[in-house]
Every structure is written in C-alpha cells, then in structure tokens.
C-alpha cells in the first residue's frame, strides 16, 4: 500500500469534554488505505467516544473529521432487535445497503449456520457479536471502526476477526480498532489515549 495515498479518514484537533471533564484534546490522526490503527487506553479514557466522533455519530467539542470514504461502525451494542434472527438481520441490511451479498455464505463464514434462525433474544453473547460482525461483509466500505471486536468471541472467532482484518487491508481497506490486551493484533500503528 502506498502511504502517500489520499487519506480515507482524517481527524484534526479533536477534543471532547464529557460532564465538565476533558476526555482528550488535540487529537489528530490520518488513516490511509491498508492501515490498521489500534486505539489503546485504560477504561473510560474515551476510546469509544473518539470512535463515535470519527464515525460521525457524536459531535466533537473541538476539531473536525474529514471522511473521504464510507465507513462501517461496530460498537459495544450490536444493533440487533430481539425478534430478529441472524438471517433476517443480515438480509435486511444487505437490502438496505444494496444487494449482492450472499447471506448464506456470510452466515457460514461467520460460524452462524446453526443459529441462523434463532431469535437474537436467545442467541449467546458470542453469537450476537458474530452477527454484528457479519454486517462488515455485506457491503464493501473502505473504513472500519471497530470497538472491541474480540469481545465475547471464542478462539475461532478471534482468529476469524484477524483473517477478516487482514483481507480487508489487502483489498485496500483501513480500520481503527479499540482493543484491550490482544498483543497479537495485526496493527500498523497505534494511538494511546
């Protein structure tokens, strides 16, 4: 990947205040094709908040974000309705974002073939996370913003996330992930809050 490429995502001078407390200030970052940035920091330092700002969900107190490409958001909450099954959920979002995704293939890939028709209310924690992760495969979006992507996953699941990330980067995608521990994460750089 060419590091002189146009940045996919740029944040400059980002600062955030939450409840009279300065969470972070003057944060700048640039994400280019193929990069994988890891966000580190103790609990409550503002990783989730920064990711939401980058995704455009939260308005920063200072600074600005420039998005040159669409991005996928994967947060603590999975965005599943209790009555949805992994299959109906993925079908719905595939339709919303433009069709073309092969739902069955995605389900199998994510290890969701068996609980594909179980309502989300009954899914195990890991199955819920896998369903949410599967959304990343429905539409190609160059930037992925992942908040603790390994949470609740078993060893297989964590290896799967690594593979997804590697493939995404190989295709010219980029990502920022907030991660605790997980020394083995295939990162190209990191930022500590």
């Amino acid at each position: 990947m060419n590091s002189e490429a146009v940045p996919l995502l740029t944040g400059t001078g980002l600062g955030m205040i939450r409840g009279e407390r300065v969470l972070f200030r003057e944060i700048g970052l640039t994400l280019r094709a193929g990069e994988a940035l890891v966000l580190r920091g103790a609990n409550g330092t503002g990783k989730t908040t920064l990711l939401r700002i980058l995704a455009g969900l939260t308005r920063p107190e200072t600074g600005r974000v420039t998005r040159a490409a669409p991005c996928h958001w994967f947060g603590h909450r999975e965005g599943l309705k209790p009555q949805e099954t992994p299959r109906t959920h993925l079908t719905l979002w595939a339709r919303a974002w433009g069709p073309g995704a092969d739902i069955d293939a995605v389900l199998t890939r994510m290890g969701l073939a068996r609980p594909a028709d179980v309502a989300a209310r009954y899914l195990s924690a890991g199955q819920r996370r896998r369903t949410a992760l599967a959304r990343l495969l429905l539409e190609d979006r160059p930037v992925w913003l992942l908040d603790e992507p390994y949470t609740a996953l078993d060893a297989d699941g964590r290896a799967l996330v690594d593979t997804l990330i590697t493939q995404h980067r190989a295709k010219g995608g980029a990502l920022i992930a907030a991660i605790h521990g997980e020394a083995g994460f295939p990162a190209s750089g990191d930022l500590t809050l």
Partner: protein
Amino acid sequence: MTAAPLLSAFRQSLGEAWAGGAGALLPLGFLGGAAVLVPLGIGSDADTLRAVGPGILWVALALSSLVTLERIFQADAEDGTLDLWLQAGAPVSAIAAAKTLAHWLSAGLPLALFSPLLALMFQAEASPALLVNVGLYALGSLAFFFWGGVGAALSATVRRGGLLISLIALPLYVPTAIFGALAMSGGPGSTGAPLLLAASTLFACAVAPYAMAAALRLAAD
C-alpha cells in the same frame, strides 16, 4: 439516493410491530378495552353514549398511538440500531418517516378500520357516515402517529419516555382532535372540517420527519 434503506427501515419496523405475536390484534384489544371501560364508568344511557362515542374514539386513537410509539425510537437508541440507521446512507428524516408509517400501518390503520364496529357499540345508528368516518379516523391517526413520533424521538434517551412523550405530543394532537371531532359532529362549520383535518395531517407529515431527524441525531450523540 436510493429507496433501499427506506424500504428496509419500513420492513424492520413492520417486523418489530408484528413481532409481539398477535401483532395488529393487540392495539385493537387496547382500543376495545378502552371502549368497554368507558361505558362501564359512565353508564349505558344511549343518548349520552351516542354523544360521547366519537370523542372517546378519538381519544382512544390518540392514546393508543402513544402507547404504540413509546418504544419505537427508544428501543433503537438502546440496542444500537439507531447508530446503524444514522449511517445507512439515506436522509434520516426519510427513515424516520418510513418507520412511523410502518407503525401507523400496523397499529393505527386497523383501529380506524374497526371504528364503525366500535361506533355501533356506542349506539350509533348504522349509516354510510360511519364509513366516511373511517377515512377521517385514518387521516387523523396518521397525524397522531407523526406528532407522537416527534415526542418519541425527543424522549428516546430518557427513562420513562412514554409519559414525557404524552406531555410533548398531546398539545400537538389538539388541532387534529378538534378538526376531527368537528368533521364528525355534523354541526355548523363541519363542512370545511375534513379539509382542515387533511391539511393539518399534511402539515404533520411534512414537518414532523425533520423534527424527528434532528431529535434522533441528538439521541445518538
């Protein structure tokens, strides 16, 4: 850009509305229940009932739209779906409108369709006017749902939003309730009332989605 996200939002909300199991039967149960409790409270004098009937139906429609809407956006904010819709690549106002429409279709329209039955229960005389009233109730309840949606979006991140919604939405319901009641009264001034009702519903459909969109962005912040 494309209508696909709107269709998806619409579909998801329909699914949500029907997911309780008995689906559209439930608001009907609510309205039926209210219709039963009211005469229990006020007695069975046919004249009183006939006078009160249409008004009670409007109130029941308003209240059941509140009950239906309470959780629409609050649930979206809590389970993370709102974040996804804000990034779905379609105007948030259009998505909010699609969701509201879906809920109206599954909880508002059936109530309107059953209104002649309920009117008969309130000792109204069987007449073609009852069928005209179905249209009026349908129009009016559409406005109720849109204004209720604004209230629901505003209180999406607040606990006990339901009651806050009622506080916000009830004043907005007033014009609709007045024009609706007027149109059915057959009294003086009732000829223009259906038009006024339609106009106020149109106004709701035109304005409410933008208010909802702004409130939803706030809820995700």
